[in-house]
């Protein structure tokens, strides 16, 4: 693993963005999805990124997770600056230091739950740490389902498999993109509860993009985005505070577009 000293690597920071800019399109069609975002995501914390539609929250996550290349600024994950990495190194970084949970289409349909969970390890050719695997599987409560294929599982179960897969390689940071977007409330609670426990019990770092205040209320910290910039943040949020913030963000956006 190459340690690219970013110079500003602060102890306790799992990933950070420095003046991150992402522009789509050209000329009149230009959209600044990220317009100079600077943020540190702390290790061992459950962070939510919130904001109205089009605020750039997904783009921020994609850039930090090495899925997309920013137009400007710097993204650092686990002390490694992503800017100079080639596709091969990015692939390795994703495989070894980043975990993902997506909204849907999360699992490979031809593999069983167990195979899906172990996929990042088997792609890397690494032997799974059996004890850790068991711990994770028990934490998501999937032991009886390990031999099943995704088509034989409910949406909640599938998403828990995805969570287990994100954790099994012991990544520095787990990114979750609207992980409960397609789930009913019971399943959502299970998944969020598990993410919460992974932070509390395993010391995992989790960053979740969501627009659901209920989901956000499980986190330690919320970063609010609007029009590609960070506008606010909340620590140890409760649901009412979140709703209030969201409402004020919507108002700002509405006023801006009206004016």
């Amino acid at each position, binding site marked *: 693993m190459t340690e690219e000293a970013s110079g500003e690597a602060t102890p306790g920071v799992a990933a950070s963005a420095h003046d991150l800019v992402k522009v789509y399109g050209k000329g009149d069609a230009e959209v600044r999805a990220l317009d100079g975002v600077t943020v540190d995501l702390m290790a061992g914390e459950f962070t939510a990124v919130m904001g109205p539609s089009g605020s750039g929250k997904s783009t921020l996550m*994609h850039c930090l997770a090495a899925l*997309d290349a920013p137009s400007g600024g710097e993204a650092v994950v686990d002390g490694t600056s992503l800017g100079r990495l080639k*596709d*091969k190194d990015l692939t*390795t970084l994703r495989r070894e230091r980043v975990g993902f949970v997506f909204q849907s*289409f999360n699992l*490979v349909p031809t593999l069983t739950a167990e195979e899906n969970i172990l996929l990042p390890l*088997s792609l890397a050719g690494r032997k799974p740490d059996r004890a850790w695997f068991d711990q994770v599987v028990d934490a998501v409560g999937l032991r009886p389902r390990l031999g099943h294929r995704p088509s034989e599982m409910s949406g909640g179960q599938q998403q828990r498999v995805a969570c287990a897969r994100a954790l099994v390689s012991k990544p520095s940071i787990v990114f979750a993109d609207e992980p409960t977007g397609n789930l009913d409330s019971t399943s959502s609670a299970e998944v969020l509860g598990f993410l919460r426990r992974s932070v509390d019990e395993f010391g995992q770092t989790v960053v979740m993009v969501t627009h659901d205040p209920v989901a956000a209320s499980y986190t330690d910290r919320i970063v609010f985005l609007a029009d590609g910039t960070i506008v606010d943040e909340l620590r140890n949020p409760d649901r009412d505070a979140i709703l209030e913030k969201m409402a004020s963000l919507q108002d700002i956006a509405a006023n801006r577009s009206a004016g």
Partner: protein
Amino acid sequence: MFRLTWRNLLARKVRLLMSTLAIVLGIGFLAGVMTFSTGLNATFDNIVYGSTSDAVVRPAGDVQGTSSGVSTDQVVTPADVDKLAALPEVESAVGSVDGVGSYLLTKSGRALTGTGAPTLAFNYAPSENMAGEQILELNQGRWPEQADQITLDTSTAERGGYTVGDTVTMFVPTGDPRQTFTLVGTADFNGGGTAGASLVLLTTPEAQKIFLDGEDAFTSVSLTGADGVSQTQLATAADTVVPEGFTAVTGDKVAQETQEQIGQFLDVISYFLVTFAVIAIVVGAFIIFNTFSILVSQRVRESALLRALGASKGQVTRSVLVEAFIMGVIGSGIGVLLGLGVARVVAWVFRTLFGLDVSGEVLTLTPWTVVAGFAVGVVVTMVAGFVPAWRAAKVPPVAAMRDDLVVQEKGMARRLALGAVAMVVGTALVVLGLVGAPGTDAIWIGAGAVIWVVTTAVLAPVIGYPVLVVCRAVFGAVFRTPGRLAGENALRNPRRTGATASALMIGLAVVSAVGVLASSLSATQDAIVDDQFKSDFLVQTPTFQGFNPEFGDQMQDVPGVDLVSRQQGTPVSVEVDGSPDQTFASGVDPAFFQIYDLTMLDGTDQISGDQAVLSDSRAADLGARPGDTIDVQFPGGRTIPLEVRGVFEGTPTTSGLTVPLSVLEQAGIKRSDSQLSITIDPGADRAAVKKDLEAVVKDLPVLAVQDKVEFKELISGQVNLLLGMIYGLLGLAVVIAVIGIVNTLGLSVLERTREIGLLRAVGLSRRKLRWMITLESVAIAVLGAVLGMALGLVIGVVLRESLKDDLTELSLPLGNLALFLVVAVIFGVLAAIVPAIRASRMKVLDAIATE
């Protein structure tokens, strides 16, 4: 609805282009071989009609000599020609002198003629064909005027590297074999090419010297009728003055006879080629079917939306069928045009391999070819598109609102049950063929085999399962996770994998079946040679045409040579059940019976004078027993009664009727040898004797001295040439099948965009992703190859069984089959190149983010 169909076509240009390519190639091939066949027929028609005069005076009888490779001593004197010319019905009578057994060398001394199409050597005398045109037209230089001058046809002169003024070497059938001439001109038949035959034009005295030992006479006479005289009137009038043993026939009859002779041979070529075009089209149909199936399943939501908006099932079906129709029209149109090019390629191959020359001028599209090309292309495309279209219409409207979009496909149970029944029916037909049902066995077996192939294609998803499981295990073990994923991908949609593999399966089934037959043929011929090659050496030409007996005389004098047996073959006519039956007779010398001891079933093989021995089957045909007398008519029209002395057990190398050489001489057939069998003295040095024998024929490369091993090689070389051609023709079907794999993979990659993105997100590198796609392609190719080869082996073995009277040995080309498997893997890798690159170029984010 039509506008939607059109938009759909435009929106999926690349995919449709790829499946249209399957039609283009299939129809291109069909149109190409049809054009070639038409051109081939036109070429021969032009020659036949362009080179035949109003009437011909020729030796009487049922067997024509020159066209069958023998010359006779029947002649027409100049006085006879004058008598013919004096008839009021005759405008002109031109005597011609021709004969067989001449061979040309190239300028550098290699064989120019004698390996393929015949060499026609004759005297030049201006004469007119039926249309009143000169039969021969000068291209360059002039006609031969002196004994040492020669004029050749343009193509032969070119192939031999000769230009006017060069010295041309020709081997002649009588006297001193090696003669040289000066090339004074080139000429062609009025109708165009010679279809590969070589024309050698000499002065009349020189032709008479070579073919008639210098006698001032002619072998036939061409007649041109006076104005207003019909061919029949002309022939009838001429018949009154022709000499004994000759007859006058109309030009139409001569042309018709020639066409009948050539026609069979041309039909065989056409059927042979069209068979492969049909295979290519069937393979193409599978690809079209598969492409439409995938497109339809990807368009489920759209079809459901249409249904929800009020479109009827019929409208949805029709919209897909119209797409198929448009594809069929476009593909056939391009294919028909491509056929012009294909025809030229086929013509080139025939010219190179067989010296069969068809000029580009006659390779044009006939209305029939265009109509057939479009009809086949459009019908095949629409038939292939029907099932997918029907399936699209069955999507319930509510599917538009649902998330899980899958075309509900029926379980495999019904398919399996139907398939099992079809397999049993196919097997029953094959068994009927084997136990000898009425009619040709091969037709029963062929019908059964076709049912087998189709059923295997339908059942490929089921019976291919074990093959794919093995692939998955092997890939997983060798290539770890990407291999495992590739194996799973091949298994996830068995119908699609099965249908894609089926295209390849058909091609390989035919390849393997043909391989078994060819391999068995080689083995059978090896066994025959082992059994029948009793002499130490054989001397003959590749086409078994006669050659100058002078060579045999010289070989007799080579030190170490014990016996030289001369054999001369000739067609003859015998009477079977009251009607003339053409067969083949061998004239042999006494040494023949010393070298080959025939297994006598009845009587003796001691023959001399007007006597003959018969094979058991020929004796049965004639109902003849030793002591009986049979009438045999020879070329030239003479009938000789022969006493049957014995009946021997027929073998593949003996002719049914064997007579002393003296009988042929008595019938007026010019001496020439078709084959020499040579044994050496005990203790003589084989290699040295062979060297000395070869020295005798070193000037005439077309004549070869072969020992047993070389003879085997010669025969297996001929089998392999044919096999190579068949494989080449089947290669097209395989190429179409590979296009199918490219298509399916490309569509699968698009369909799995998100999954690929996910895999990339969790750490699959681009290289491993390419591996994954490539291995999936290899799995499909291996499945097709394994199914095809297994089926082909069974079909080949069964066909061999039904032909076991001729193919006595069974041999499995296992080495070739292993090679085919390797080739299939290579094709699998090639087919994956484009889809794999496309997949690896996909951006991770696009893959995940597309909603």
